[in-house]
C-alpha cells in the first residue's frame, strides 16, 4: 500500500469528520457564549436533524430540500423550547439549564423512538455525490469530499455572519455585556431565542449531513453530545475559532487513533482533553477557567 496515498486519504477522512463535529461544536459554543448555559440536548437536536432529514428526503425526494427543511424545523423547535421553558430559568444558576436540557434529551429520544421506530434508517447520499474517486490510487467517497467543502462554506458563512451582519453584531455584543445591550434598546431575550434556534439548527444540519454516513439511529444523541462537549472544552467555551480547532483536533485523534490504536481510540480523545485542561483549564482559546 502506498503510504502517501494512505496518509492523504486518512487526512481527508479526518477533515470530513471534523466538518461534522464542527457543526455540533459551533452551535454549542455560540449558545454558551450568549447565554452561559450548556445545552445537554445538543446531541438530541443533532439526532432530530437526521430523522427529520430522512423524512424530508422521503417526502420531497431531494436531499437538498431536506438540507433546508431539517435545520429550519429543528431550529424552530429549539427556539420554541427557549421561549417556552429556558427563558424562565435565567435567574437560576447554570445547573438548572443542564438539568432541564437533560430532561429534554430523554423526552426527545423517546419521542423520536415513538415517531420513527427503533430500526436505524438509511438515508442515501444524493446520486451526484454517491460515487468514489481515486486519490493517489486510493479510493475515497465523494460524499466525504463534499462534507469537507460544506464544512468550509458553513464556517466562513458563520464567521461572516458574526462579523458583518447586524444580528451578528448584537450576538457578539450580548456575549460581552447583555445588560448594556438591553439598556441600549435591544430586546436581549429575542437575541437569546434566535441564538438558541441557530445553534440547534446547526446541530440539525450536522444531523442531515451525518445521516448518509452513519444512518439515522437512536444511539446518535449520546455519542454526539459527548464528542461535542469534548470539542468545546478543548477549544474553549464560547470561542468560535476554538470550536473549529477543537473539531479538527478531535477528528484527527479519532481517525488516526482508530487506525493505530483501535483498543484505545475512545480513551485517546479523553486523554487529549485532559492534557489540554491540565495546561489550560479554560480550553485552548477560552477566556475563563
Amino acid at each position, binding site marked *: 500500500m502506498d503510504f502517501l496515498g494512505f496518509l492523504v486519504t486518512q487526512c481527508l477522512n479526518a477533515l470530513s469528520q471534523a466538518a461534522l463535529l464542527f457543526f455540533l461544536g459551533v452551535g454549542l459554543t455560540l449558545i454558551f457564549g450568549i447565554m452561559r448555559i450548556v445545552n445537554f440536548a445538543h446531541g438530541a437536536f443533532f439526532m432530530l436533524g437526521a430523522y427529520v432529514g430522512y423524512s424530508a428526503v422521503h417526502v420531497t425526494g431531494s436531499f437538498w430540500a431536506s438540507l433546508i427543511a431539517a435545520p429550519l424545523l429543528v431550529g424552530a423547535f429549539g427556539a420554541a423550547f427557549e421561549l417556552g421553558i429556558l427563558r424562565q430559568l435565567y435567574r437560576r444558576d447554570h445547573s438548572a439549564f443542564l438539568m432541564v436540557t437533560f*430532561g429534554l434529551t430523554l423526552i426527545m429520544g423517546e*419521542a423520536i423512538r415513538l415517531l420513527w421506530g427503533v430500526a436505524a434508517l438509511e438515508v442515501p447520499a444524493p446520486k451526484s455525490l454517491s460515487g468514489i474517486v481515486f486519490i493517489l490510487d486510493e479510493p475515497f467517497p465523494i460524499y466525504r469530499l463534499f462534507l469537507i467543502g460544506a464544512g468550509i462554506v458553513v464556517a466562513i458563512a458563520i464567521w461572516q455572519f458574526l462579523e458583518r451582519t447586524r444580528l451578528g453584531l448584537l450576538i457578539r455584543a450580548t456575549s460581552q455585556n447583555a445588560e448594556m445591550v438591553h439598556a441600549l434598546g435591544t430586546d436581549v431575550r429575542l437575541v437569546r431565542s434566535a441564538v438558541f434556534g441557530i445553534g440547534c439548527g446547526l446541530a440539525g444540519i450536522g444531523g442531515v449531513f451525518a445521516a448518509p454516513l452513519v444512518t439515522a439511529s437512536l444511539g446518535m444523541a449520546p455519542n454526539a453530545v459527548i464528542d461535542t*462537549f469534548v470539542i468545546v472544552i478543548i477549544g474553549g467555551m464560547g470561542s468560535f475559532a476554538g470550536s473549529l480547532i477543537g473539531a479538527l483536533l478531535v477528528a484527527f485523534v479519532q481517525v488516526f487513533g482508530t487506525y493505530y490504536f483501535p483498543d484505545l481510540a475512545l480513551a485517546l480523545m479523553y486523554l487529549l482533553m485532559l492534557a489540554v485542561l491540565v495546561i489550560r483549564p479554560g480550553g485552548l482559546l477560552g477566556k475563563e477557567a
Partner: protein
Amino acid sequence: MAIKRNSLLFLAICVLALAPTGLPPYVMTLLTEALILGLCAMSLDLMVGYTRLLSFGHAAAYGLGAYAAGNLLLHTSIPLVFSVLLAALFSGIVAIGVAWVCTLASGVSFSMLTLAFAQLLYAVAFKWTSVTGASDGLAGIPRSPGPFGITFFQGRAGFYYLVLACLVAAFIFCRSLVQSPFGAVLRGIRENEAKTLSLGYNTRRYKIAVVAISFMLGGLAGALYAPFAGFTNTELLFWLFSGQVLIMVIVGGAGTLIGPVIGAAFFMLVSNMLSSWTDSWALFFGAIFILFVLFAPQGIWGLATRWRSLSSTG
C-alpha cells in the same frame, strides 16, 4: 424539632426493618433495589446538594464498586461483607485521582469532565474483557459466606438487612459529616467559593475529599448491587444511569440527604408503574424532571418539610 425529626427517622428505620416479615418476595426485591439506589443518590447529594459540584458521572462510582465487588466475589473467597467494603474503598481511592483532574475546572466544565471520565470507564469496560467481561458483563456473582461461616446475608431477607444497615450507617456518617466543620466549608464552597478560598481554606482539597467520599459511598451502592443482581454489565457505567441518579437527587430534594433516598424510591415506584402500561416511561420521566426543576427545585422532601413547617406554625 430536631428530636421530633430524629424520632420520625427512627420510626422509618423500624418500619423498613420490619418489612421482610410482611412483604411478598417480589416487593422485597424492589425495595432492596430502591434502597441500593437510594444509597447511590444520597452519596451524589454530598457533591450536588452540599458542595454544588454537579457531577454527570456518578455512574463511574457505581460501576467501579460493582465491577470491583464482582471480581472479588468471583475470583476470591473473601466474604461478602468484606468484599463489598473493599470495593467501596477501591472506588473512593480511584476517585482521588479523578477528582484531582476534574477539579482543575469548575462549574459547567466540571460537569462535562465527570461525564467524560465516566464515559472513558464505559469505553474501557467494553474493551477490557478479562476484567469486565466486555458487553456480556460479569455473570453468576455469588454472595460468598462468612466470616466464621455466617450465611445470614445470603438469603433474601438477610441481604436486605445488609443493604439497610449500609444505608443507615452511610446516612449517619453523611449527616455528621455535613454538620461538622468540614461540612461547613463544603457549604461555603457551595455559596461562594471565592470567599471561602479567601478565608484561607484550600477549597480544591476539600472538593477532592468530598468527591472521594461521595465515590466511596456510591461505590458501596454499586458493590451491593453486584451480589444483589448476581451480574454486572456496562449499563451500570452508562451516562444514562448518571443522569437517572441526578434526577433522583433533584426530584427527592438536593442538600437534604434523606430526600435523594425518597427520590430513588419514587423513581423505582414511578418507573415500575409506568413501565407496566407504557414502554415510553422515559418520556414521562423527562417531563416530570423538567417540571420539578422549573416549579419545585427543592424537591419532594423540600416540599414536604415546607408544608409541615407551614402547618405547624398555622
